């Protein structure tokens, strides 16, 4: 059984698997624990996200603002959601995170996440008001908090010493 997740599933995820089968490549269709085809669901939504640099530099993004990463404040699940949205794009044009829209994690079990409880929609759920409850896949919580804390502190220092990282300040 092959599961194609997503709400909605990208048309390519459905049709390209059908093409693979019809061209005799079923043997190349590897599946993960949830029976998702690995060719589309190995990497994360973050792969190919135009805000990936901001994620690395811990620069916050917000609605209506150019640049910045949506993981910190508005609940983006791009770093822990397996899907190829930012590699193959939607409607041949764009993706949620490319237009400042937090990834909702619709290809992962549990969507809509946190059961839509109060404070979970378009807000990053946090411990103690600053530690994200969900951390990027492949990180231990403690390891992530330490690395992110270091990056964030470095970012503030660099800003003070005048390293300009506000990419969009003079662009539109």
């Amino acid at each position, binding site marked *: 059984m092959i599961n194609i997740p997503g709400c909605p599933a990208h048309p390519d995820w459905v049709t390209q698997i059908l093409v693979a089968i019809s061209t005799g490549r079923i043997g190349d269709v590897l599946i993960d624990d949830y029976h998702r085809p690995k060719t589309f669901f190995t990497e994360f939504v973050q792969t190919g996200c135009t805000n990936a640099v901001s994620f690395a530099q811990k620069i916050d993004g917000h609605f209506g603002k*150019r640049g910045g990463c949506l993981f910190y404040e508005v609940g983006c699940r791009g770093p822990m959601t397996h899907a190829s949205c930012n590699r193959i794009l939607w*409607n041949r044009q764009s993706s*949620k995170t490319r237009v400042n829209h937090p990834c909702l994690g619709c290809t992962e079990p549990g969507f809509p996440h946190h059961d839509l409880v109060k404070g979970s929609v378009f807000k990053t759920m946090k411990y103690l008001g600053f530690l994200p409850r969900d951390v990027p896949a492949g990180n231990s919580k403690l390891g992530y908090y330490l690395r992110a804390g270091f990056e964030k502190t470095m970012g503030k220092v660099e800003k003070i010493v005048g390293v300009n990282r506000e990419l969009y300040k003079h662009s539109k």
Partner: protein
Amino acid sequence: MVKELNISPVGRVEGDLDVKVYMENGVVTRAHTQAAMFRGFEKIMEGKDPQSGLIVTPRICGICGGSHLYCASSALDTAWKTTLPPNALLLRAIGQATETVQSIPRWFYAIFATDMANKKFANKPLYAEVVKRFSAYVGTSFQKGVTASGRPVEVYALFGGQWPHSSYMVPGGVMCAPTLKDITRAHAIMNFFRNEWLESIWLGCSVERYLQIQTWDDLLAWVEENESQRNSDLGLFIRASLEFGMDTFGQGVGKFLAYGTYLHKDLYNKPTIEGRNKALISSSGFFDGEKYHEFDHLQIMEHVKHTWFEDVPAAHPWNEPLPTPVPSQNLEQTNFDGKYSWSKAPRYMGHAAEAGPLSRVIMNANPANLEHQFRDPLFGDILKQKGPNVFTRALARMHEAPRLYEMINKWLSEIRLDDEFYIKPKEQDGKGFGATEAARGALAHWIEIENGVIKNYQVVAPTTLNVGPNDDEGKSGPIEAALMGTEIEDPHDPVEVGMVARSFDSCLVCTVHAHDEKTGKKITEFKL
């Protein structure tokens, strides 16, 4: 001789709508529509985060998701008393309009026009040309039209990230902050859509020339003006519709409801329910067959006597409880004197009213429309000359494409890249109302927030308005009424019933069940 006809499903895409018609001497004497699937979207949101509707409701429908989003964000705007920057109103309007324009060729070629290639019309002179162009999958225009329908939502994706199922409209504005290259690409895609289908295949003339048409006589003169217009898909559609008699059946209740849409960038920066009507670019209203009434959402009541929900008195959505389902029956076991559908029966000022593009363009012809609103007399005249029927309903839907094309370009050019796209609102308890015109008609959401969570959420979709069952007083819903009196040429292939249902573009797949009125014997059952 009396016969019973069951049609299931009526649509071609998704959902479940069954139609049961009884026939006597080849004429439909009774009709019932049965929405056969419980959705429960309102129930899902009970007790959840107030913004849940932004994620959950677009998923009610794979083709009207942007319209649900327009309502969900607007309902929160009024409940939270947000401030909306002009850019946000423009980008929401562009999202709504591109979704609607997408639906126009997709509906025409994939859902509607293939019926014109039915053998019922085989003896008509234009039949061969209609078959050549509009036959499902193989017609020369079919693939081109369906392919072109994907273009406008590429523009939606530039601002919403993807279509369908984006949540980019949020209380206080929009998520995106487009750059110059997004705007220029959007113009280019729309231009491509115009060259690829709208002018070259559909109109056979420029958008500007088409929009000069003011009356039914103008339209007929336009068809005959030159070979290009006469032989365009629109020219052929008009000539064939009249030749095939598609203007002679499917009249319906003759009452029209539109909530209007496209809130003006400078007139709705402080969203209120009271200020909405005057801020609309495509006006709202209720036309009772004789005169126009100003739209007031408090006039909407939902009836559940014939719905598989626990009985409650007819009530306005703010005042009705979240529905409690009761056991349903399949079509064969359904007693149509009792409960028989999952759809509620909404009524406006006590009347069943038709929702859809025909209602919209009738509101656009209202002489009282303001300077910033669409002022287009064409369908005021067409309603007088032709009345509502399968043809005028389809023509109204297609009529919107050129105007919306023009508006999308205008709105794109009004976006100010240096200005705001979002103003963070303050969350609060309260009641909200958000509405729009989905491609297939009036759509609204009502929300009540208490203690920071959703206490009540009610959605009334255009399909609810159109496919709804009888109300508490036993009056038919709009599609039920439109089927009454329809002449069925071949009871084993009742294409007329499908055409009436599809002229409303109900977003439910439908099955027809034909029965003999006297014997109750089933004649045929098939999917359309």
